[in-house]
């Protein structure tokens, strides 16, 4: 019997060009370090926001995008990415394990969603999966989605809160004032008020306490 030798085919594929957009300076460098350690990934840069990311020049295949450190609405950041780097897949990095937050990111066009306590090897796996055209969602969050579906939750897309609105309603549920919310999210109080008005309209409510109750009932808080 002849022995069969399997020789791996020489790799002809170019490394995936990865851009890290992360508001936390040290965490961004840590991410770059982890991603750059994989030969199939090439970290082409990092920035603290989409606005500063030089998307056209860097031409990333994939953007690892921090959800939490943005000064702009997430959907707006996604629109900028789609306009300036339409080829790029987007893998969101988030501190939130709430299914609603993940669903809003995917609705806004993200291709993957991972939570920041992910292990390095799993992050690499997630990034490669998204880069190759597959979706990747943190299993804990995906489990939450399935649970919510089986419980019959769900609203029409028209009434769905945006990522920023979801953040704000969570902070309302924590008892934070508009001033505190504006400080935490780096928004003006006027912008916070506008978001809250939209939240009230979408949920057909008139008071912060109702918003807080909604957040608690739907697992946002």
């Amino acid at each position, binding site marked *: 019997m002849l022995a069969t030798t399997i020789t791996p085919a020489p790799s002809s594929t170019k490394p995936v060009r990865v851009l890290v957009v992360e*508001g*936390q*300076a*040290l*965490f961004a*460098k*840590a*991410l770059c*370090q*982890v991603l750059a350690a994989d030969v199939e990934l090439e970290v082409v840069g990092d920035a*603290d*926001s989409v606005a*500063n990311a030089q998307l056209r020049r860097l031409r990333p295949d994939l953007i690892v995008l921090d959800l*939490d*450190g943005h*000064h702009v609405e997430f959907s707006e950041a996604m629109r900028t990415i789609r306009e300036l780097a339409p080829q790029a897949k987007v893998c969101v990095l988030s*501190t939130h394990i709430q299914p609603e937050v993940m669903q809003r990111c995917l609705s806004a066009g993200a291709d993957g969603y991972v939570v*920041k*306590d*992910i*292990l*390095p090897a799993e*992050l690499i796996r997630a990034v490669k999966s998204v880069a190759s055209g597959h979706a990747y969602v943190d299993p804990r969050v995906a489990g939450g989605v399935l649970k919510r579906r089986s419980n019959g939750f769900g609203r029409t897309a028209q009434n769905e809160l945006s990522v920023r609105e979801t953040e704000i309603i969570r902070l309302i549920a924590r008892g934070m004032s508009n001033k*505190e919310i504006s*400080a*935490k999210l*780096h928004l003006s109080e006027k912008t916070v008020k506008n978001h809250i008005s939209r939240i009230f309209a979408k949920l057909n409510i008139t008071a912060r306490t109702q918003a807080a109750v909604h957040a608690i009932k739907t697992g946002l808080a």
Partner: protein
Amino acid sequence: MPSRPVWHRTQALVRGDHAPRYAGNVDSYVVEPQSLFVPYLSDVLAGAELRVVRVVPTLDVEDIRASHPDALFVDTDFLDVDAADAVSAMREALPRAFICAYTDGEGADRLRFAGANCVLSKRSGAREITSALRTALSTPAG
């Protein structure tokens, strides 16, 4: 770079009642759930002569008490409890330890009043973090 709110600047404040002067490698206990961040963070802390001896993903005051490190570095944005309450509990457990809170949130003053020697912003780069830690660690007790 966009301008930052005042509280976003890395701030260090040493409180005289629980801030002994440190020299050389300081045994440090890190509370940080973002495991992929830990190796890089440890390198940055080493630049300020903070030697990481233990890293845990969640706050456990009894474990902190048992470990009795010289310094605590705590990512306060991932705690299950109020950050200031957590710092108070750590201060009570280790009255003479150097406590550094690392945060992207508001409330630096609350954290300092709760007993943090130093409050560092997540917006700060490695050099800024190292410099602030060195300053805070070398400031003599008042």
